[in-house]
């Protein structure tokens, strides 16, 4: 008697279908921290689709997942606090395009960026920053983003930032059910999906609802806000997916080298994105040895 026969609707989509939600000119929120937990497979898929003129909003640090979009010509503008490949080195396309004047960079700091996202998540018109940022260079460079109001309680001047509201956010997690309840194993970047108009979750594994319920206090992605769930094993490769696999250091070094030059990066894209026409073909190209290397926690060094 407790069921009407109508079933709860799955939000699961194939990668190719979910990628169609990304339209030219969108503001796209990119999950991940450095190259960890980035929706890398999703980024490669929208490159294949030839998406243009994106504005990228990363959740603070971003790496491969954003740099590859830059190198593939998908991006017009980017909000930044950090773009880089962690200890591997600079994000090569970011640096090259910036230094040749081909990239519109909204030069923020972490606090400005994340408080802009919080303002959006909270549905408020701006967010005040702590004292100590007044007249600092990020503020001077972005007079349209950092503004000053008078604190009505003390008369003190306070810097505030406006809401940043991506049209669509893409977040990679280790586990998510078909209804969008997702679990981040490591760091918690739930802020991005609360701040965005649409949300795509890519996940290493689609888990049954029962698994969600058995671990409900670990759910960090609020399923109701999720528009599509995409199962993409190794979806963060060559970045790390917390709880699943490590960074593919060898691949990232290759990537980093290729990206320093337009020609060599085109060759990289040809090999790993265009000729590898889908995610499975990409993984084939990376090869079993490459994938297995990311499963070994203790590599290199005497303990390993």
């Amino acid at each position, binding site marked *: 008697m407790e069921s009407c026969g109508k079933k709860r609707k799955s939000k699961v989509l194939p990668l190719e279908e979910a990628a169609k939600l990304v339209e030219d000119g969108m503001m796209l929120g990119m999950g991940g921290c450095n190259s960890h937990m980035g929706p890398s497979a999703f980024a490669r898929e929208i490159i294949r689709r030839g998406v243009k003129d994106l504005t990228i909003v990363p959740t603070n640090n971003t790496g491969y997942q954003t740099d590859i979009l830059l190198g593939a010509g998908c991006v017009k503008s980017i909000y930044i606090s950090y773009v880089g490949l962690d200890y591997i080195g600079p994000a090569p396309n970011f640096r090259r395009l910036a230094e040749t004047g081909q990239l519109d960079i909204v030069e923020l700091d972490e606090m400005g960026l994340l408080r802009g996202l919080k303002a959006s998540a*909270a549905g408020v018109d701006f967010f005040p920053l702590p004292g100590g940022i007044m007249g600092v260079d990020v503020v001077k460079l972005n007079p349209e983003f950092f503004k000053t109001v008078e604190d009505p309680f003390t008369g003190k001047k306070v810097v505030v930032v406006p809401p940043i509201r991506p049209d669509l956010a893409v977040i990679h997690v280790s586990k998510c059910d078909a209804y969008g*309840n997702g679990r981040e194993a490591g760091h918690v970047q739930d802020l991005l999906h609360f701040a965005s108009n649409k949300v795509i979750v890519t996940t290493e594994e689609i888990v049954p609802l029962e698994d969600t*319920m058995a671990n409900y206090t670990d*759910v960090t992605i609020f399923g109701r806000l999720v528009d599509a769930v995409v199962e993409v094993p190794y979806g963060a490769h060559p970045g790390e997916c917390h709880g699943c696999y490590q960074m593919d250091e060898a691949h990232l070094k290759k990537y980093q080298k290729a990206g320093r030059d337009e020609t060599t990066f085109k060759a990289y894209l040809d090999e790993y994105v265009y000729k590898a026409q889908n995610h499975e073909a990409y993984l084939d190209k990376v090869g079993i040895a490459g994938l297995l290397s990311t499963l070994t926690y203790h590599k290199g060094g005497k303990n390993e």
Partner: protein
Amino acid sequence: MSSVSHANNYCPAEIMVAFLSRDFNDSELGVIGAFSQIPWCAIRVAQALHAPNLWFVCGPSASVNSKYEKLLWSTTDYRLHVGAESRISLDTVMDMQGNPRFIDFGCYGGFQIDKYGNLNMAFIGDQKKPKFRGPGTVGIMATAWLRRSYIFTHFMSPRLFVEKVDFISGPGFMDGPGGREKIGSPSYSEGPRYVVTPIAIFDFDEETKVMRLKSVHPGHTIEEVKSRMGFTPIIPDKVPETEPPTEVELELIRSFDPDRLLPLLVR
């Protein structure tokens, strides 16, 4: 509806549950507060009957899509974490209320409700020494922010339905047309949609924003409704009977209320 068989042995709270549950749409997100037995049942019935994708947050217990089997007195009860799909922090609950993507509806009450659907949960008289002290505004300012809200009551009396509340804890239409705009409510926030009581249902006149009798529950009369109110609502020429719970609805309602709390709630 001609082939639908209606029940006649329901209690007042059960017709209220049935009415509300029909108005909750699939894929929406509802939020319920404390002392919200009727909305809880309505959500569970809607999920089972026509809205399997309806999400709900039980505010006081912080659980999302609780699957606890039966109605409890308190929505802060830990049992409402049974079958939950996540839990949310108080800070996120606040975010949800301002965020245009988040909550579709909430259900609220008060110890005073006025003709514009404003609610008072705070006090009557001088705040420093009130004639009557209520528990406080709680989260019902949300009626200013959410896409829509429902007002529900456990009884009807002229002291409950007043011309003008002494204090607005939950904004309805404030002082009438344009009232919500004046306080800065977002344009997507329609305000209170229905007032659901043990003997009748009201909506609000599109033009004047005054409470309007929409239907009277079977066994009750317009005169009775009027006599239990401190102001006269708009009464259209034809006021239909509220559709009673169907047999299917009633069976479902009772499956969620095996301890029969609903009959105790509204007598």
